[in-house]
């Protein structure tokens, strides 16, 4: 069974908001993107955010363990 790490497509209701956010981030970097590029970027960002959240959780756990003197 494939692990669920956000393989499901982005729901339509969230798509517009996501593309709006991508536009903001791309412009923040001084760049411009086409609608097709923004759409692909939104999907990439959704998957990237899930993986980044997993990494943050792992780092926080290690910090907490270190604070408590627990060795992995």
């Amino acid at each position, binding site marked *: 069974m494939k692990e669920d790490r*956000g393989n499901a497509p982005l729901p339509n209701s969230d798509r517009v908001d996501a593309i709006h956010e991508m536009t903001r981030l791309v412009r923040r*970097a001084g760049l411009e993107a086409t609608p097709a590029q923004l759409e692909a*970027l939104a999907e990439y960002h959704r998957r990237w955010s899930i*993986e980044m959240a997993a*990494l943050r959780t792992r*780092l926080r756990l290690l910090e907490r363990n270190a604070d408590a003197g627990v060795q992995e």
Partner: protein
Amino acid sequence: MSSQDEELCYASAVELARGYRARRISPVEVIGAFLRRIERDDAAVGAHITVCAASALAGARRAEQRFINGTPIGPLDGIPFGLKDLFDTAGIVTTGGSRHFADRVPRRDSKVAADLAGAGAVLLGKHSLFEFASGMPELDVPYPAARNPWDLERVPGGSSSGSAAALAAGLCTLAFGSDTGGSIRGPASFCGIVGMKPSAGLIGRSGALTLSWTLDTVGPMSRSVADVATMLDSTAGTDPGDPGSVRGGVPTGHAAALDRGVSGLRIGAPIAVVQRSPDLDPETAAAYRAALSDLEGLGARVEEIDLPEFEHANVVVQSVITSEALAYHHERAVSQPDKFGDVFFRRLLQGALLTGEEYVTAQRGRALIERSMRQVMADCDLIVMPTMPRHAGTPAEESAVSIWDRSNYMRIFNISGQPAVSLPCGMTTHGMPIGLQIAGRVFEDATVLAAAAAYESIHHWDRKRPPRTGGLS
């Protein structure tokens, strides 16, 4: 093309050097055979951006004279090689596979080009690559997307695609590529050749175009482990122009150590990590198990291990590469975005998503993985796993899979800076090569190569050739 040409084009560097010394063959004869073969087959394979016919013949004549005089430089004298077209070559256009650098002619050689030329090797050409060494094959750049010589409908992998395809098609003897997240080892696996990502810092990167300052590694590619070791010996060393280069105490003697074998070595096999891959092909899994058994038969002790932070390698490498690539190309991305191919420009846009805090989190993840891999290597001398979970697909099959759904067994060694080599370990029923990856401790590249040589000596997958080498069409 004569059968003698065919044999010359598939001979190893070791065999050519032996022939030169015995005066059975000459460098001019060999370069001539390669130029005829490139003329005949490269349109189908798409391995070259530039072919250096005139300068290669001149170089071959100089090498030939040295052999006549009894003063050859060393084991690479007169041996033909190609460079991924991101290594600067003085007076020869270096494009990075991009329209941005279509007319860029460097004044100086990269460290790698200078080292190989200094060893007497003869530059045959500059190899095609994914634009600026990242992404997928591009259709909207003015350079060929290389094809896999084992099946021209399939991809050769990337980004050192032209180099791997050229070696498999017998269009060069040696090549040099770059590996930031698997760009040497992946194509080596898909094309059935040997490709090595050495320890980070072992080979200088000055004069090689940057994708990621902190992850880029450059390394040798060939059809045999011995040739890769010889190239490593000729290029390893301190590079004052590369801040990441090793300083002092450079390991040497990789070729001389090849016969050490694996007897008594502890091999870690991350079997559960591999089996968890949703895209693991059963034939690859079977070839992997057989390779572990072969290594045991050679006297190694194989033990199952875990790679505790493996699941975070993808997000760390993606975050670091896209951020650093955007930093490197930012001015061009703002002022002339249309000169990038769509695939690479999308990679740059991915880099725009990260905040500084997120980049630092990725670097903390990297430190975590490095530490974890040091602990793993305290209990084993080598790690052995497949290079890729499956054989090469068609362009449509490859581009249909998201980067997040694609298992990658290579990136963890880019993060840890460990040496890792890919070499052939079997063929699928589709007639496509399967690659085995052997990784070792940092700066223990010689142990990795000795294990690879021992494994290679059992099956000699290196002697297999694509079915249509008599005339690609």
